[in-house]
């Protein structure tokens, strides 16, 4: 039970002490010191505070409008992503729908791609020369071919692009619901809809809150979807933040904007934590039974749900298909949207793969991302457990400090690391970190901390504490309990988080550009160069090739981590048993820092 436990009792466990010391050092060295450094440098350029940034920003109509748009998008996205996300989760995991495995694969396509290429994919379909648009124009000749633009277009694309978290965490939480409570409700006469509304969704609340925060963050940090589809009317703040970050004289503006978004995130987080407080979201049953799929008894509703499910399936999969197709076309065709099957060739692939440095960035990225993902999840497993277990002022302080990377854009985080560690610094044993391969790894780990922490904490929260007690009383040491009891229970969630972290780091640009070792450069730099269009028409084609290759890599990781654990579960089912929900994925969570590049990508993931 999670009664408040005094700081005193924490200090008694050597395990807590060791983790605490390491954590304190890490937070001080890599979260607080560099960021305080960079914030001081931007807000106190000559040692005294200047209110210039605020003054400039608040008198700029454009900034205010863009900021407003970002918030609008964040709020709207929080709603729409939940609607679509919950729907697809129910369709794939709760209701008995014909072909739900195929549907799952379709909806899961957001696991493996996102960002700019995704926006492009949608443009190929709904843009003014897109397939669907051409079709529609043929039917309704009066129609505006540029219909797919502005707020609604951005919202639509981002909604479909960011349901990844639902597919992972909400679905997981759903599986943890004690099926007998559903039986009980049915038995008490509740309809399918009532059961959903009154029993199932309330149990999913913490997870829904968590993914809502992620959606909110994604909306706030939206970059490429508004750029590509927003048109004149709907531009967001992130591009401005990026521009100002890159201009030393305007960096205070960037920092201020980032802090505004960061604070909004924190407020959202606090509100959600408050809302979620006091509820019980784990099964109180002695032994819970596994969820079984529900029939939709109403025939009309059944047909309607099937229809919507397959329509969404098309919406999800078409862009992927086109991206794969276009990756065989030449750059000009991609940009003008003209595709003819005759000019699909393997040229792009040959070019990318035979480039002198073709595969190396891939390998570098895979190694960095894998290391960072594993370190972040591995390290935070302990931290998350402790924070979930001990609730007092000290642990709350730690928890909030660990969210710092959400407040600042990753470019500023990177700059902070550079200014703090380009000279021997006692915090890291007098070493100089710039120019080493380690510093990028540190940054990668750092930016993934908030998301990882939230998701892990949530999955630990779903573990019944008497399991731990039972093991402890049999003499198992903290670490052993952790390894043998807790880990198996949170492993599916931890694996999913690792995979998401891995996928989202593969193409990182903002941190890498500042911190990458000159001889060990990751893929993001290559992709960025290509999408900037300065590299001629080949560049954009290269990006498609990279995207498809990344899809393959991330697809394989997701399969290895998630698909396989799913199968194993099928064979020897892990009872949610006394643990209640296995990994509700509850808690609050988050994607990238506001302002991170390519914010269309789901928190979760990928490109």
């Amino acid at each position, binding site marked *: 039970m999670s009664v408040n436990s005094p700081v005193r009792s924490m200090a008694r466990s050597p395990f807590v002490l060791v983790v605490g010391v390491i954590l304190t050092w890490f937070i001080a060295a890599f979260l607080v010191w560099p960021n305080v450094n960079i914030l001081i440098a931007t807000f106190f350029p000559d040692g005294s505070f200047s209110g210039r940034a605020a003054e400039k920003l608040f008198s700029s109509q454009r900034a205010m409008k863009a900021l407003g748009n970002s918030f609008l998008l964040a709020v709207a996205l929080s709603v729409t992503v939940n609607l679509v996300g919950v729907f697809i989760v129910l369709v794939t995991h709760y209701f008995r729908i014909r072909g739900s495995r195929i549907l799952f694969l379709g909806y899961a396509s957001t696991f493996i791609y996102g960002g700019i290429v995704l926006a492009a994919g949608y443009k190929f379909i709904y843009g003014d020369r897109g397939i669907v648009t051409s079709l529609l124009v043929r039917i309704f000749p009066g129609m505006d071919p540029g219909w797919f633009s502005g707020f609604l277009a951005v919202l639509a694309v981002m909604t479909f692009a960011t349901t990844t978290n639902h597919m992972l965490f909400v679905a997981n939480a759903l599986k943890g619901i004690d099926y*007998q409570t559903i039986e009980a409700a049915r038995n008490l*006469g509740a309809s399918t809809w009532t059961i959903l509304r009154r029993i199932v969704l309330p149990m999913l609340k913490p997870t829904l809150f968590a993914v809502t925060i992620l959606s909110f963050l994604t909306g706030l940090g939206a970059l490429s979807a508004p750029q590509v589809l927003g048109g004149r009317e709907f531009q967001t703040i992130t591009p401005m933040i990026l521009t100002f970050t890159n201009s030393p004289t305007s960096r205070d503006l960037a920092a201020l904007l980032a802090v505004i978004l960061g604070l909004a995130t924190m407020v959202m987080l606090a509100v959600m934590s408050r809302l979620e407080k006091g*509820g*019980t979201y784990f099964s*109180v049953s002695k032994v819970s039974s596994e969820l079984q799929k529900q029939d939709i*008894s109403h025939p009309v509703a059944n047909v309607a749900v099937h229809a919507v499910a397959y329509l969404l399936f098309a919406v999800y999969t078409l862009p992927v298909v086109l991206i794969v197709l276009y990756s065989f076309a030449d750059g000009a065709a991609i940009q003008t949207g003209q595709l003819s099957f005759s000019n699909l060739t393997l040229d792009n692939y040959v070019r990318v793969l035979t480039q002198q440095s073709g595969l190396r960035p891939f390998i570098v990225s895979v190694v960095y991302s894998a290391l960072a993902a594993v370190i972040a999840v591995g390290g935070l497993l302990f931290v998350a457990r402790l924070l979930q277990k001990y609730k007092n002022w000290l642990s709350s302080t730690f928890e909030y400090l660990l969210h710092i990377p959400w407040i600042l854009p990753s470019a500023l985080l990177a700059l902070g690391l550079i200014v703090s560690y380009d000279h021997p610094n006692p915090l890291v044993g007098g070493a100089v970190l710039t120019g080493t391969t380690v510093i990028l790894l540190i940054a990668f780990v750092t930016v993934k901390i908030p998301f990882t922490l939230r998701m892990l904490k949530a999955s630990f929260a779903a573990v019944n504490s008497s399991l731990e007690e039972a093991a402890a009383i049999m003499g198992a040491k903290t670490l052993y309990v952790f390894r043998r009891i807790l880990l198996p229970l949170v492993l599916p969630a931890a694996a999913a988080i690792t995979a998401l972290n891995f996928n989202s780091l593969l193409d990182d640009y903002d941190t890498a550009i500042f911190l990458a070792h000159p001889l060990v450069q990751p893929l993001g730099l290559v992709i960025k160069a290509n999408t900037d269009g300065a590299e001629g028409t080949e560049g954009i084609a290269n990006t498609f090739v990279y995207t498809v290759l990344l899809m393959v890599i991330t697809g394989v990781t997701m399969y290895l981590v998630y698909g396989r654990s799913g199968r194993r579960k099928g064979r020897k089912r892990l009872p949610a048993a006394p643990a209640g929900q296995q990994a509700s994925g509850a808690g609050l969570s988050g994607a990238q820092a506001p302002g991170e590049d390519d914010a269309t990508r789901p928190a979760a993931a990928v490109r």
Partner: protein
Amino acid sequence: MIRLEDIEVTFGDFTAIPHLDLHVQPGEFFTLLGPSGCGKTTALRTLAGFIQPARGTVRVDGKDVTRLPSDKRQVGMVFQNYALFPSMSVWENIAFGLRVRKEKPADSDRLVRDIARRVDLSDEQLAKNVAELSGGQQQRVAVARALVLRPKILLLDEPLSNLDAKLRHQLRQQLKDLQSEFGITTVYVTHDQDEALAMSDRVAVFNKGVVEQVGTPQDIYDHAATEFVCNFIGDSSALTPDFVAEVNRLSGAGLSTDARSYLRVEKASLDRPSDGGTAVGLPATVVSRTYHGLHSRYVVRSHGADIRLLVREDGAAHPGAGTATTVYVQPGHVLQYHPGTGAALAQDPAVALK
């Protein structure tokens, strides 16, 4: 009212219920009694519509409901694991069914408080989260949640097993009251023979997914049809062939010495029974005595048989372990079963007539 016909239930390779026929009369309090793991819960869940039998038919009021979902069967159920809704307060849990039925909030509240009082849940507890309740309190919430709807058929899966004796007796009584008041047909699952005998109109004794005997409590107790039932219901001592032979010798009865023979604890005594016309006394030694408040439980040994019996605690002095004594037995009370099939042997009319 309820008929299970030729039901088979399997979990993958495992056959939990190989073959089951049951018939529950309207308004009856029917109990499924059997040891842990024998398939009681499985049978109940099949009846409720949560498990689809691999074979067979479930009928309610003559209608085949085998493929009907559980909410269409008009049955209320109390789950063995409670299945409380963790996201709701105690009040909301109990009121759930009422809200689904769109009762007026004021009515709901009255009904909820009413039933809560009857299962001993305080107003303070109604406001709590279900996770904050003790095990027994949770179980009471589950019972209240089913009772508040006053269903036509009520299925109860060990609803009283976590309650203390007092409360258990009290709730037993309330369940019985409600049941007879509303004529709710009730199917009750328990492993507690005492509960089964005390509450039921009829009892089905389960063993490994198979019904060994169906009958009224007295029927089952007095005429256990199989060795398993005899052993499971009530408390019996196994008799040795030697012992049986001695009884035959002393009484002239013709009990079989090949059969498996048992004697109910209450049929043996250390005093000659007042009405025990045919009772015979066999020399015995006291093996042990345990105190049980109401009575002491003795084990005495005679002719190789360890015979358990009860002696009322009425303040009189009792023989301690090792003391020689006499155990009195009536041949007509000896229960005999076929050593192969376990079926009851017809009692010799000569001895059966006391």
